[in-house]
């Protein structure tokens, strides 16, 4: 059988994969760091552009078997592809000091990042469980290496191993679930699964005993187990409780830009996969209660443990565990909503997507600020190392505070506030008031540690007497100059280093985007509703 392939629909995937190949070739033939990075940046930008153009041209589908297709290039695929490409670009910019330091080989680093991006771009368009899992693995596999790529870094190796073992187990669980589901339904395509389960849910009740043969599909233990395995396997990828333990260790051991990628792009991948199966394929009656429990425990555990963290990257890691709970919450409400029609699902999915978009922007800004405030090759460091950092580098400090406050969901971080509002609104529209209260109370716990991190940025340094900075050092002075260290004073742990322009540019861009979508959240809501 000859299948016609719609190459236009595949254009973003081609561009992403082509970027990976070109990066490899550039590294091989030109062997200069600048060239490799430039090729990568151009390729990622082209991928983003391609995704937008293909998405704007209307919905396309390819690799079809009958009416079910494995590759669906619609509006949401364009959004996911574009986000992945932009996040990769952002992480590349944050990696500039790391690449320059020679701690990681630039060619390999860029190639692996591009491979991961390819997985993400395909993931957004995946139309069957196999494509979905393969794309997710393509996204994750290079990260095992990236986490441990630093020379002579024991922490990195440990982190990579933790991540590898946990992630492989998760993939195996998801695959097992997919296989069981295939055994029950005979379908792998998401649209086919949806049709099967919809037909099953609407099956007329047997009155006289003369109705279709066989037990009800939704009541089969095998179906329940299969659905649960798929959802839980994917929950690993978003680092949802109880499958979250890998995240803090991995984030902290990885280079900071890779941690940024893990908590933005990789998490986005998990969310997209979870959305794809829960919204389009699996029955909400089964996934809903499961996801509601996962959401509640994820946000609560994430926030409570984050309260006790002493290391900055671990704080961000636990906070991003908690944020995953907020993302999943609207999906958990699905099963509880009385409507449960297509409209209810669309509202919930749009809320989850919108929250994710707001979240990745703020998270990237937060990690960008961490990179900008730390020496080139250092890890995230202790939170105490950031004492007074905003006084030394006011603009970076202000951006960091904006990102943290946004993650806490308070003005002036309006983007984060509207993200929370979107989730709470969708929960209340879905009759899940108790879940909305849980989300709201978690926001209070969250503020406690975000506030602690933000306050330490402006805390007076122990070395400098309070009288010293009473006169000067306003909150946002124009000159980001070095502080006046009195001669003989002990040098602060984190000597202010001028960050690379790429880092500053990425941080500035992420902050500007966060401010813009904070004042015009409708932009995100429109895109999320596609």
């Amino acid at each position, binding site marked *: 059988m000859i299948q016609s392939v719609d190459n236009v629909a595949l254009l973003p995937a081609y561009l992403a994969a082509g970027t990976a190949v070109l990066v490899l070739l550039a590294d091989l033939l030109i062997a200069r760091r600048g060239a490799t990075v430039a090729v990568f940046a151009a390729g990622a930008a082209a991928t983003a552009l391609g995704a937008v153009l293909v998405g704007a041209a209307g919905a396309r589908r390819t690799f079809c078997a009958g009416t079910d297709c494995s590759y669906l290039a619609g509006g949401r695929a364009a959004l996911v592809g574009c986000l992945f490409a932009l996040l990769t670009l952002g992480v590349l910019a944050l990696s500039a000091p790391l690449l320059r330091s020679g701690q990681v080989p630039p060619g390999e680093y860029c190639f692996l990042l591009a491979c991961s991006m390819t997985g993400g771009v395909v993931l957004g368009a995946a139309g069957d469980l196999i494509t979905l899992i393969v794309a997710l693995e393509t996204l994750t596999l290079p990260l095992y290496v990236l986490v441990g790529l630093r020379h002579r870094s024991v922490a990195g190796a440990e982190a990579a191993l933790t991540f590898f073992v946990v992630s492989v187990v998760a993939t195996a669980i998801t695959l097992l679930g997919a296989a069981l589901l295939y055994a029950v339904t005979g379908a792998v395509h998401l649209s086919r699964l949806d049709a099967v389960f919809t037909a099953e849910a609407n099956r007329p009740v047997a009155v006289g005993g003369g109705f279709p043969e066989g037990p009800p599909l939704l009541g089969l233990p095998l179906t329940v187990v299969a659905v649960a395995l798929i959802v839980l396997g994917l929950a690993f990828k978003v680092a949802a409780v109880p499958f979250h333990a890998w995240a803090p260790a991995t984030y902290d051991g990885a280079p900071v830009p890779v941690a940024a990628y893990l908590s933005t792009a990789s998490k986005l991948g998990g969310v997209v996969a979870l959305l794809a199966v829960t919204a389009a394929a699996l029955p909400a009656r089964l996934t809903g209660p499961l996801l509601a429990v996962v959401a509640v425990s994820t946000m609560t555990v994430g926030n409570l443990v984050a309260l006790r963290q002493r290391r900055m990257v671990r704080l961000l890691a636990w906070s991003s565990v908690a944020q995953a709970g907020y993302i999943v919450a609207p999906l958990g409400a699905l099963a509880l909503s009385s409507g449960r029609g297509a409209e209810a699902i669309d509202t919930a999915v749009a809320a989850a997507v919108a929250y994710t978009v707001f979240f990745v922007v703020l998270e990237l800004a937060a990690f960008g600020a961490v990179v900008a405030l730390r020496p080139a090759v250092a890890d995230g460091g202790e939170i105490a190392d950031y004492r007074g950092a905003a006084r030394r580098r006011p603009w970076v400090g202000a951006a960091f505070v904006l990102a943290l*406050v946004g993650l806490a969901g*308070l*003005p*002036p971080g309006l983007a984060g*506030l*509207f993200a*929370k*509002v*979107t989730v*709470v*609104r969708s929960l*209340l*529209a879905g009759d899940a*008031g108790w879940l*909305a*209260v849980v989300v*709201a*109370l978690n*926001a*209070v716990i969250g*503020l*406690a540690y975000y*506030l602690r991190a933000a*306050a330490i940025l*402006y805390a*007076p340094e122990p070395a400098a007497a*309070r009288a010293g*900075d*009473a*006169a*000067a*050092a*306003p*909150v*946002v*002075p*124009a*000159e980001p100059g070095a502080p006046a260290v009195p001669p003989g004073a002990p040098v602060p742990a984190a000597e202010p280093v001028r960050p690379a322009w790429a880092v500053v540019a990425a941080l500035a861009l992420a902050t500007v985007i966060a401010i813009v979508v904070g004042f*015009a*959240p*409708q932009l995100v*809501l*429109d895109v999320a*509703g596609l």
Partner: protein
Amino acid sequence: MNLGGTALVATLAVPAVGAVVLALLPGRFDRAARITGTAFAAVTLVIAALLTVGATDTWAVYDPSPPGAPVGAAPAIWPWHRVDLTWVPGLDLRFQLGVDGVSYPLVVLTALLTLLCCAYTWWRVPAPGRGRSLVALLLVVEVGILGTFLALDLVLFFLFFEVVLLPMYAIIAVWGGEDRQHAARKFALYTLFGSVLLLVGVFTVVAAAGTADLTVLTGGTGLSRGTQIAAFVLLAIAFAVKSPLWPLHSWLPDAHTQAPTVGSVILAGVLLKMGTYGLIRVAVGVAPEGARAAAGVLGTLAVAAIIVGSLVCLAQSELKRLIAYSSVGHMGFVLLGIATLTATGIQAALIGNIAHGVITGLLFFLAGAIKDRAHTGALAELGGLRESTPRLAGLLGFAAIASLGLPGLAGFWGEAFAVVAAWRVGGPLWTTLAVLAALGGALTAAYLLRLLRRVTHGPASPAVLTLTPGLAGAELLAWGPLVLLALAIGLAPTLVLGFAEVPVGALLEAIR
């Protein structure tokens, strides 16, 4: 947008622009920045005061119909001016502002107190300096408070409610007293606890009614009894934290005591009023069924706040902490008035709000001045203030007497009529509450007189004897308007009630 609408937007835009300008000014122009900020605050006050131009139902231009005449089919909220712009349709959020007789006095009070606080920073910036940032934050807080009072869209109301939180946190955490970090965190977490419940309550209403327009929602049209009760409980807890209502008040003494003088003035003067205003306009207005169901509980808690607040004050030994706790008692009277759900009660609450803002604002200014001079706030060490600084002692005496509710001064009307309103509701519960509240009023007098006896009279302590009698010009400038207002409102309560009469009548008509 017509002139009135432009003025509404300008009321919020001017302080917001002022804050941005101050943030962009280089740090070395600290004094110039403080003066610029004060100028912005002054312009805001002028615009806010002018909002009454064009009003049709105030004491100045209202043609009083015969007493007892029904308000008729007038809408529940009839703003003098309004703005209605699309912002985020996906979240039912419209940029909808309006001002009427309920919000106008609070708007003017907010603008006035912010101006006085900004002007006060000319003379004194609390440690560690950086007056520019302090004034900028004060202006941001002003935007949030004014926006809360002006918003006619529930979601917008929530948004402005949240805006206040972090700037106020920063004011306490940076410029506060010894234990400022702890107090600031407590303030932020408590207040956020309230405002997240507000968020849930707001969207409970919005999801059920399909609109966030307060002018449509007032009266509880289209909401089932169950929804109204759920919404009222959520909203009432949210506003009870802010007001604060016993037993959710414990953030207040710490925050007020540790905050710098200007922070305490704004906190006590207008920030607490966001809670009581929200209770009247949002909680009672949108969920009247819920309000009726919970009125007894609310009233009981309010009286408990009065009694507990007064008793705690009797045992306080620190000046600022005493004034802070007195707010719990005074706000108890305001909440008691609201809980009666009668015209007298709500009017008492509105005038009590304004009076408390003026008097407690003045008290915190004076307490700050005394602490700055004597370097102590312990009552035991402040004896004999009358001998070394007679003017300061006199002003403190005036403010304390105004606060205890002497007839003829501003504090009288709110407390007396809250008790009257509770008595008029009748029944064993409300009669008991009225009696207990009256008893609380007596306790209020007791602790304020004790304060005066300890501080102004009595043997002079060494810390006080060294003080110089003079008062700075900026101090007189900041305190003068408050002294005059306390007198003026006391002698002519119609200054506030005249604005509120018609809108309160319309509200009660709508929630009947």
